[in-house]
């Protein structure tokens, strides 16, 4: 059972995007950082354990040509071996900052290149893998940036080809050992999932085809891929083989956010947030899912949801048009 905790007010309401909440846990400093996209700006704020807001900062998408200010698609903290960077993707490019958002250390402008006049050009989907940061593009390409231990000397090291439609989300985890070397999953608007092995050169291991709906959100944990789809379904796959193990008719509207650690959190535009317990069956060794908890956020199209601690005993939620971060913790 979860109870509602004190909300954290936002200066600007959350935009109707997917994966519109990033959380950076800093247990050593008894702080949690939250990042939410408003539209042309994103808000970062830090809060104490009881949700008392301590500091906040707004970041803008870097300008470019056009009639209106560029829109941000996602904001996400990337935890690397020696540093934490905050990455912001927009319809103009990719901005990387020091973790508190105080200094921009890198700017990568999007190359509209082959985009036809009717295609929207943007970057979306952010994850870190070892000392790399991977960012998805409207073209389906995934850019891999090599990040030094400190300083701004960030280099674009590779461009991965695996998707033909805009990338929606990227998930990574440290490799699980010899049996499963898959440590990155990328998802796109067609629902296709690509499973990769990171390294000086990333290797495409397997592809899991879509079925006509976008996959806006994907997670990877202990060799299991959790994917949320536009038709409200959550599917769990074995990362190494791409085999489908579980299919959940979880939501009544498009799923917009997932988190996994160790429970699975799913949130959708149907106003619901669900928590699922994952386990390995002793006999077959396959994944089993049990529904733990459902929370309705009345009259709110949820657009972001994350666990706030490693045990998954608390989580935070954002919703379109809502100028606060809702918090829940288990009793």
């Amino acid at each position: 059972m979860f109870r509602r905790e004190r909300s954290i007010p936002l200066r600007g309401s959350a935009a109707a995007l997917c994966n519109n909440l990033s959380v950076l846990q800093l247990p050593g400093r008894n702080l949690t950082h939250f990042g939410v996209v408003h539209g042309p700006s994103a808000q970062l704020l830090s809060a104490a354990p009881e949700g008392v807001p301590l500091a906040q900062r707004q970041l803008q998408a870097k300008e470019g040509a056009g009639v209106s200010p560029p829109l941000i698609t996602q904001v996400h903290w990337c935890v690397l071996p020696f540093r934490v960077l905050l990455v912001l993707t927009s319809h103009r490019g990719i901005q990387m900052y020091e973790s508190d958002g105080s200094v921009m250390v890198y700017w990568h402008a999007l190359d509209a290149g082959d985009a036809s006049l009717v295609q929207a050009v943007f970057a979306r989907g952010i994850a870190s893998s070892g000392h790399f940061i991977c960012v998805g593009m409207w073209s389906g390409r995934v850019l891999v940036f090599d990040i030094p231990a400190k300083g701004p000397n960030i280099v674009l090291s590779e461009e991965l080809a695996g998707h033909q439609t805009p990338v929606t989300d990227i998930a990574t985890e440290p490799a699980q050992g010899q049996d499963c070397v898959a440590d990155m999953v990328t998802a796109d608007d067609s629902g296709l999932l690509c499973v990769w092995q990171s390294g000086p050169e990333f290797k495409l291991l397997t592809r899991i085809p879509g079925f006509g709906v976008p996959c806006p959100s994907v997670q990877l944990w202990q060799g299991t891929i959790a994917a949320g789809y536009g038709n409200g379904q959550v599917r769990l796959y074995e990362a190494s083989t791409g085999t489908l193990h579980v299919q959940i008719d979880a939501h009544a509207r498009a799923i917009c956010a997932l988190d996994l650690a160790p429970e699975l959190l799913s949130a959708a535009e149907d106003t619901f947030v669900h928590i699922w317990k994952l386990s390995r069956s002793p006999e077959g060794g396959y994944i089993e899912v049990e529904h733990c908890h459902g929370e309705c956020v009345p009259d709110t199209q949820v657009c972001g949801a994350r666990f706030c601690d490693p045990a998954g005993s608390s989580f935070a939620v954002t919703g379109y048009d809502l100028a606060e971060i809702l918090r829940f913790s288990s009793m």
Partner: protein
Amino acid sequence: MQPFCTFTGVLNDIISTMFNRKFMEELFKPQELYSKKALRTVYDRLAHASIMRLNQASMDKLYDLMTMAFKYQVLLCPRPKDVLLVTFNHLDAIKGFIRDSPTILHQVDETFQQLTEIYGGLSAGEFQLIRQTLLIFFQDLHIRVSIFLKDKVQNSNGRFVLPVSGPLPWGTKVPGLIRTFNNKGEEVRKVEFKHGGSYVAAPKEGSFELYGDRVLKLGTNMYSVNRPVETHMSGASENLAAQTQESIAPNPLAKEELNLLARLIGGMEIKKPSGPEPGFRLNLFTTDEEEEQAALTRPEELFYEVINIQATQDQQTNEELARIMGEFEILDQPRRSASKGDDLLAMMDEL
């Protein structure tokens, strides 16, 4: 007899202006989301394409109604592709108003074809991006609309009710089932869970043909039965700091916006009430006094900004605008000073 003819005339004028080929051509060009200012300016011009006139207060109210109604429709679309069905519902209703005018009917049908050509083949992901972008335009607008409050589709805080029951989007199964498969793909377990809502599968998919059952009710005529048109201003706009960011910052793109508007409005003919047909003024309030009072008491943060196309210092734009200006009369509007930084536009208005 005469008021009825005038009314039909007004509808015909507005609809034929809206579906004018040149105007539609501009609308269909790939472009970014319009600013609130630009949309309100176009709306103003459209509303004056007939002999009908509205005072500032009634115009504001009409725009509020339109904005909140459209926000409701986009927000509640079960699946992103349903925004297209909503648009087709709009067109179907419009065709009902101009049944006896074959020329205008043809214009609307042509627009239908264009919509199908351009949007009919878009993927679910592309429609999701369109819907998300539209929702940015409506972000933080919470004006309360009487008809919505009465029908309990809007709460007293201005937020729309999102029901957790009813028909599901086409393609979504009823939530509540967990299916487990083994390595061979065989289902080995089926478990139900309580999802908290009360949904039913959609009966069928709405039709995207020129004629057909759209199934979706969003976008159909809200006023098909006689309904009140009130809106409530107090507490309507939240997060003003974030919202007015758009108009406070000096806008270096004002010129581009003017060019866009010049192209959009360029073909529009503004009618001047003259000849045997008397002009008439539409008042959306119960009395003239009420309308005047509404204009005086409208909260400052809800002032709409309309671009006054008077003159600019730029020679090229000047010529283009002068040509357009020659085609219609500039309405006398008191300049709203809600934004502080529109230097270029301020300069223009002074000329």
